[in-house]
């Protein structure tokens, strides 16, 4: 009984720890957004100060008195609330009696020229008027109070999860089985907790973006008043530095329309933007935009839900182990089995399932690989695929290319039938035919590229003997796809032949003997006996051949680059080009999804049409 109590204590600890870990992770994420906001405000303030402070005559450094005035003026700016400080060199200007920077800190800032953290304060370098050297710094303290308490939803979810978890933990090792209402209830509560935690993260991200926008708006308006009056577009250019200064904010300043001071969210050109409008003079408005931080919080969602679901998962595993502990043999066997399965499972999970899931996620987003943002666009990518004439062309080319499969199969089966009879030659011939298949694909493609060359290629040389004029095999849109198909046939024949040969050797001799006695000639024996009995092998070769054919890439990439005039542009090449040359990863993923659906459908149809009678004894 005491063992059971220990199991339950562990289960209780799991419930408590996973719940707290979820909230702690959310808190940490929220803290990161707060700090990022402080960093951005420090950098933006530095840009503002640099813009509004005039330089000393004959120097690029600022005039200290004017700098002092600007710093103090900033503190008095209505609505401006960050806890900040401006340093000239190492000396504080706003609170002159405050602590100055140490020379080491200042040197560090000068050398690295990026935002540094000192305690709770983000320190941004203040550069001289020529943007050449660091002459001071602006510090902004990270806000404290904003994320001190979890909101009501999170607290409620926490209480609910703890309660449900406690109920489940109490019955660990009892008669209950996995998937009971209690367990499902706990799982639901944990999911709610994960969502609530994510809600906090998202809220903090949104709050950070909003705060930077509202505060920067004040700086833009203030700076506009201190500059000589100009029209809005000149101002947008002149003050652009303020908007662009914040690291990672994606700030932009453009000419805008009148609006109130609230932050709005809008989508322009497939990009989500958070926008606030600043009034820079009578009838002159500037729109200050930033990338909303909450738009790229998917990884936090995964983390929060993952952590929260660790609780139900752990309890499920504990419950299973507690029930199985009375049968230690089976427990050990199961654990051993999982131990053996683990490497393969992990490999599959990391290198197959995870990328597949990632591709699925990408296919409903716009993502350019270089930018951090993945904008959700729903089915836009798929719609675009359907409207893209190049895609249809590549699909047509892929289908045409697939015609090489039956040709290869017929050749391979013929060779296999010949070799099957001549047992002495089999070893040598099999090796010779298989060599292309085991050789490097790129090397083969390069050799064929040489053979296809219109000027010195082997093929044209041979053809010239029979009077066929030089053909630019790979350069002519009429022949290019055919030429690539020929290479593929040449490579695949050996492999398919080996498979067919194995299939032929698997047919019991008695069937053919019986057919001989029954009076069937060689032709009849092949069509009435051998070929039907080879059906499973044929189906295998056909399915793998078509799948491989749909996925052809390397030959195209090396031989033709999809050209000429897209004559050899196949679907995988299109995916490759879309992703790695045009950097449209979302679109490419949607294309990959289309390819998957196509292959799935084709394979399913093949099994339905041809596989019906494969299952004989």
């Amino acid at each position, binding site marked *: 009984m005491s063992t059971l109590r220990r199991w339950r204590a562990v289960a209780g600890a799991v419930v408590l720890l996973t719940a707290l870990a979820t909230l702690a992770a959310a808190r940490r994420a929220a803290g990161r957004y707060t700090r990022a906001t402080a960093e951005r405000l420090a950098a933006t303030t530095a840009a503002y100060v640099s813009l509004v402070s005039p330089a000393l005559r004959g120097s690029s450094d600022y005039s200290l008195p004017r700098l002092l005035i600007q710093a103090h003026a900033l503190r008095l700016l209505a609505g401006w609330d960050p806890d900040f400080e401006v340093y000239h060199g190492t000396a504080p200007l706003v609170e002159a009696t405050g602590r100055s920077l140490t020379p080491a800190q200042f040197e560090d800032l000068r050398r690295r020229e990026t935002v540094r953290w000192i305690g709770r304060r983000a320190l941004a370098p203040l550069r001289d008027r020529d943007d050449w050297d660091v002459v001071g710094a602006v510090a902004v303290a990270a806000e404290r109070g904003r994320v001190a308490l979890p909101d009501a939803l999170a607290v409620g979810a926490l209480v609910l999860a703890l309660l449900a978890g406690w109920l489940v933990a109490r019955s660990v090792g009892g008669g209950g089985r996995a998937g009971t209402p209690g367990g499902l209830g706990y799982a639901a509560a944990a999911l709610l907790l994960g969502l609530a935690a994510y809600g906090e993260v998202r809220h903090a991200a949104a709050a950070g973006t909003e705060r930077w926008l509202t505060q920067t708006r004040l700086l833009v308006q203030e700076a506009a008043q201190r500059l000589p009056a100009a029209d809005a577009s000149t101002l947008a250019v002149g003050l652009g530095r303020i908007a662009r200064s914040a690291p990672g904010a994606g700030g932009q300043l453009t000419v805008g329309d009148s609006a109130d001071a609230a932050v709005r969210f809008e989508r322009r050109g497939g990009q989500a933007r958070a926008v606030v409008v600043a009034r820079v003079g009578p009838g002159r408005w500037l729109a200050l935009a930033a990338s909303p931080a909450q738009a790229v919080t998917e990884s936090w969602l995964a983390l929060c839900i993952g952590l929260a679901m660790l609780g139900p998962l752990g309890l499920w595993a504990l419950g299973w182990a507690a029930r199985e502990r009375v049968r230690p043999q089976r427990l050990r066997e199961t654990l051993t089995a999982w131990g053996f399965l683990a490497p393969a499972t992990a490999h599959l999970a990391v290198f197959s399932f995870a990328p597949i899931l990632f591709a699925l996620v990408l296919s409903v987003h716009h993502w350019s690989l270089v930018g951090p943002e993945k904008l959700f666009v729903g089915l836009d990518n798929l719609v675009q695929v359907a409207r893209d004439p190049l895609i249809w062309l590549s699909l047509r080319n892929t289908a045409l290319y697939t015609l090489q499969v039956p040709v290869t199969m017929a050749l391979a089966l013929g060779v296999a039938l010949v070799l099957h009879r001549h047992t002495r030659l089999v070893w040598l011939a099999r090796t010779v035919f298989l060599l292309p298949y085991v050789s490097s694909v790129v090397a083969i493609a390069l050799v064929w590229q040489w053979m296809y060359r219109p000027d010195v290629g082997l093929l044209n040389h041979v053809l010239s003997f029979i009077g066929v004029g030089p053909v630019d095999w790979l350069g002519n849109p009429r022949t290019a796809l055919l030429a690539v198909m020929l290479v593929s046939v040449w490579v695949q024949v050996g492999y398919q032949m080996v498979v067919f040969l194995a299939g032929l050797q698997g047919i019991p001799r008695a069937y053919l*003997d*019986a*057919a001989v*006695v029954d*009076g069937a*000639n060689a032709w*009849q024996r092949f069509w*009435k*006996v051998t070929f039907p009995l080879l059906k499973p092998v044929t189906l295998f070769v056909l399915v793998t051949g078509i799948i491989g054919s749909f996925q052809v890439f390397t030959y195209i990439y090396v031989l033709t680059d999809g050209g000429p005039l897209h004559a050899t542009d196949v679907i995988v090449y299109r995916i490759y080009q879309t992703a790695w040359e045009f950097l449209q990863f979302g679109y490419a993923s949607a294309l990959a999804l289309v390819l998957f659906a196509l292959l799935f459908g084709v394979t399913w149809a093949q099994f339905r049409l041809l596989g019906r009678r494969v299952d*004989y004894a």
Partner: protein
Amino acid sequence: MASVTLRRLSKSFDRTSQPALQELTLEVRDGEFLVLLGPSGCGKTTALRCIAGLDEPTDGQIMIGERDVTHLAPAARDVAMVFQNYALYPHLTVRENIAFALEMRRVPQAQITRRVLETAERLGLRALLDRRPAQLSGGQRQRVALGRAIVREPQVFLFDEPLSNLDATLRPEMRGELLKLHRQLRATMIYVTHDQVEAMTMGQRIAVLHEGRLRQLGTPAELYERPADVFVARFVGHPGMNVLQGRGTRKRERTRAVECGSLALPVALPQYDGEVQLGVRPEHVALCPPDQGAGNADVLVVEPLGSETLVHLDAGGQPLVAKVAGIARVAVGDRVGVQPDLARLHFFDGSGARLA
């Protein structure tokens, strides 16, 4: 219908190993049911495949009726063969399997339909015509394999161990059916088996093969009563004949005896010089109290089978089996007296050939 004649038929698969068949000469009469009997590797299946035309003999001649078919294609020989694992085409239905040979020969479709139905009727396969082999039981498959042969109405039927894949309980039933079929068709049938019970119960004549040579050709009774050599003696009968190594002695002028292990048998021999092998069937060995028979032996194993009991004995170092009616009252380790039926002894010389 036709007779089958093999003349000095030899077959070697490669030069190095022993030939599978050596100068086999055999005549199967028209309408006869002949069994080729022998242990595995004796060449019986090779002989059958040569007759079918699936293997070409290295030497010799094969006649079916008056035709020399030695170098004819299988299809031209008009023989049908039933294979050990039936060789039913798995992708065809029972109907298509039976019709296969007729279709290959371009028999008119109406005739095919009629003959397939007749054959199915005869074998009780009407209800199974549209099934595939995988959906049939062993006995049903066997019947389909038979039907595939019968439907062709060939001159000669060849059976290659057709019952060896069947359950032991089904075999007697199928043996009966095969014999019934033979009576109805009056066809020449050559039947290969390694099971001497099948051979004895089915064959009109049996040809015993061993190491590629014909050892004896005769009716089941001849094989049982006068085995031509030690091999046939041991192979035919269940259990096989006891063969004891003995030496003839001439004690006094009138009492001559053969001594085998602990037994001394007073029998007359044409000559007493050298080794002699003495055969006696287990059913002709009687047990008696010690010292009252031809000698004593120790009981090694007792196998009570109900109607009879097999008693395995050690007679002075020579194994001896006695088949006793009913349940024998002996125990392992007992010493018993042994009395063979002196009128039913068989004598073989040192090389195994029958003496007299």
